[in-house]
């Protein structure tokens, strides 16, 4: 592995010397996400393998090229899981890409995002320096939280070489229920249910159907089944996988897909008639040729932001524009990690 590391450092050194740029790539499963790619491919697949896993500590440490599926299989063998239910989008997704993309799946609203489970990272910055932040312990406030800051940075700050993640035990029992109900009532109900302590671990509303996953002890869920009503969904595992990886029918279209992350209690958005609600109302997937300015204004009205998650063109302003002060701060932070601007230029914002 040290040889690979040396090779990575040489690649970075030579990009700096030749004033070229690098496009960091794991499985390539999330290449569709973000602005257009540019630069020479920097392949992270070779730097792989689980380095350490101790179920009693609830911590797994693995290299960036490790397939996400390998990590999840290892955990499942010990009745544990990555609690943020990471989307794959393709079978070859790697851990490094998962962290860089910063995306979390259906369980996000109840158990937290990928950043909440990141305990430590090893990375190469734009000078090829080998850096360690965080560690393998549950609580750590020494220095700025660079570890969590890297989640969702889309490879613009450096190569994530290795990461330690907190894992959780699998829920004792899960049950998925379906209700026929309109979007407005579904959003109100979900917010109310969560406020009452009903253990919702995933939710999805689309086409007049609300689907809810409950996690907890078997007796508790049996009791909830009585009070909540609804139809039991038999194919629950495949259903949530389809929501997680966007293979559900809703996502099978050539239309652009917008991701609006907003206040959970906001009413159904009037901007598109094809909408899928997740995360108890905090996530609204909208389909169709929306005006970017409209999507963004509506998201801001509800305290959030809009991302053009998938589209065939317009790959230069995918993410919600930042106020100037914020954009300048981003540029300075980028320079701290990558002073020669070699990593994933423009992938997040065209300005850096």
């Amino acid at each position, binding site marked *: 592995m040290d040889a690979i590391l040396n090779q990575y450092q040489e690649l970075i050194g030579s990009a700096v010397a030749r004033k070229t740029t690098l496009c960091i790539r794991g499985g390539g499963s999330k290449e569709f996400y973000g602005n257009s790619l540019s630069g020479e491919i920097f392949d992270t697949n070779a730097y792989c393998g689980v380095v350490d896993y101790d179920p009693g500590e609830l911590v797994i440490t693995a290299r960036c090229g490790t397939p996400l599926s390998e990590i999840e299989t290892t955990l499942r063998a010990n009745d544990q899981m990555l609690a943020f239910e990471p989307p794959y989008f393709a079978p070859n997704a790697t851990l490094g890409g998962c962290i860089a993309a910063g995306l979390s799946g259906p369980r996000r609203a109840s158990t937290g995002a990928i*950043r909440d489970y990141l305990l430590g990272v090893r990375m190469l*910055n734009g000078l090829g320096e080998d850096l360690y932040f965080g560690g393998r312990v549950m609580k750590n406030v020494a220095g700025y939280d660079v570890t969590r800051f890297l989640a969702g940075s889309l490879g613009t700050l450096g190569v994530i070489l290795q990461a330690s993640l907190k894992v959780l035990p699998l829920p004792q029992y899960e049950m998925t229920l379906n209700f026929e109900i309109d979007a407005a009532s579904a959003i109100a109900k979900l917010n109310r249910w969560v406020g009452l302590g009903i253990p919702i671990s995933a939710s999805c509303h689309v086409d007049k159907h609300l689907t809810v996953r409950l996690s907890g002890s078997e007796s508790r869920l049996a009791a909830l089944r009585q009070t909540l009503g609804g139809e039991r969904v038999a194919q629950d595992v495949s259903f949530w996988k389809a929501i997680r990886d966007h293979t559900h029918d809703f996502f099978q279209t050539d239309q652009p897909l917008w991701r609006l*992350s907003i206040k959970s209690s906001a009413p159904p958005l009037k901007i598109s008639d094809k909408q899928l609600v997740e995360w108890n109302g905090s996530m609204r997937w909208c389909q169709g040729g929306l005006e970017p300015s409209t999507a963004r204004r509506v998201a801001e009205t509800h305290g959030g932001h809009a991302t053009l998650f998938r589209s065939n063109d317009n790959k230069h302003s995918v993410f919600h524009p930042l106020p100037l002060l914020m954009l300048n701060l981003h540029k300075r932070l980028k320079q701290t990690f990558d002073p020669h601007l070699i990593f994933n230029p423009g992938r997040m914002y065209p300005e850096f």
Partner: protein
Amino acid sequence: MRAEELVSRLSRFLPAEAILHEEALLRPYECDALSIYRHVPLAVVLPVNEIEVQEILRVCFRMQIAVVARGAGTGLSGGALPVPNGIVLALTKLNQILDIDPLARTARVQPGVTNAAISEAANEFGLYYAPDPSSQIACSIGGNVAENSGGVHCLKYGLTLQNILSLRTVTIDGELLTVGSQGLDAPGYDLLALMTGSEGLLGVITEVTVKLLPIPEYAQVVLAAFDDVAQAGQAVANIISAGIIPAGLEMMDQGATRAVEAFIHAGYPLDAAAVLLCESDGSRDDVETEISRIMQVMRESGATQMTCSQSEAERLQLWSGRKAAFPAVGRLASDYYCMDGTIPRKALAAVLNRIAELSAHYRLACVNVFHAGDGNLHPLIMFDANHPDELRRAEEFGGAILELCIAVGGTITGEHGVGTEKINHMCIQFGTAELKTFHGIKTAFDRYALLNPGKAVPTLQRCAEFGAMHVKRGQEKFPELPRF
């Protein structure tokens, strides 16, 4: 001179009572809860709203005067310690709960609101704010964010970062910067993660949107006694390995239980080498199932005695000892020094044994009460600060504990922050390149290093003077300890 000019500039927009500059009035601000470090600031300024905060920072920026933000001053690492020729910006008067949204389960609050006040205000909606530092009736939410504070229940509910959605902050040049959003993420880099725990070095927090959770329907706690500290440590690991994430899992050694029982009667067994307090919360069904599983694991791990709370009064009684642990120790020694390292859970027994050896070596008593579930230790070193040699030994003992935590793969601070206190030990935990990255982050926010200078991140020069070497991974510092 500078003080006079500053006061005159601030007086243009602040009432006289908002600017303290007489020595006697400055005294109460000369330290935080780590009182071994003291400085009298140039002035203390007490804004009542965000606009005043912006104006004050603009004046300081123009005059290049350092600013130390201060909440309630309960910090335990000298984070709010004034710096020479700098002001203290006290945020206690920004103390309004601006809005509670019961449906979306959020509260928008000003930074000076106390942690406990948020839960009190949310109570009528059946909601509460989960992070519960033991100082919660006094500490401010702004301070909690600046330290990324935790509490007894963060094993299950997370630290401050996991329980906030967004911040309004003011940059050193007086500009407003909002990070996070009302949704579950925000565009661009995760500045909410970067600013949480940044100890007042990146910006001044003027508003926080926190998440609220439904108050659990039911909670029960088990007190388990062990003859041996290592066994208690193993019981902690066994509970977690059994797939249980309790709401709280705390440990106290014999020194701590004896101090507590002498102070208030919580009903802890005095002959046990260590006790564990393990709580379960949620629906009645779930709690009863979980408690019986917990008791079974405890029994199998060698618990000699167990008590399970049968009523809310009993539950609070069992917790009262843990909550009173610090003051109880305070009664036994004129001063105590609270450490905060975090270690892998499996290193608990080895580290506790080593701390006992160090205690003998430095001839200072040390008791342990801590968040065992996340491996976050709080050794309390007892000493007499009026005795210069004891103070020196206490600091050295503390330093040795921090190095021990790093050596077993842990960290020097789990929740209290680096502040002034652990600044030298940052040189051991991090290498030059990491420290340079921290400095780069600081510069990106605060070019002239005016916000809380000298705290949290040491300069490279300071590390050179301190002389301690960064322990490169792989090199061993305490070879007698098992490696993890």
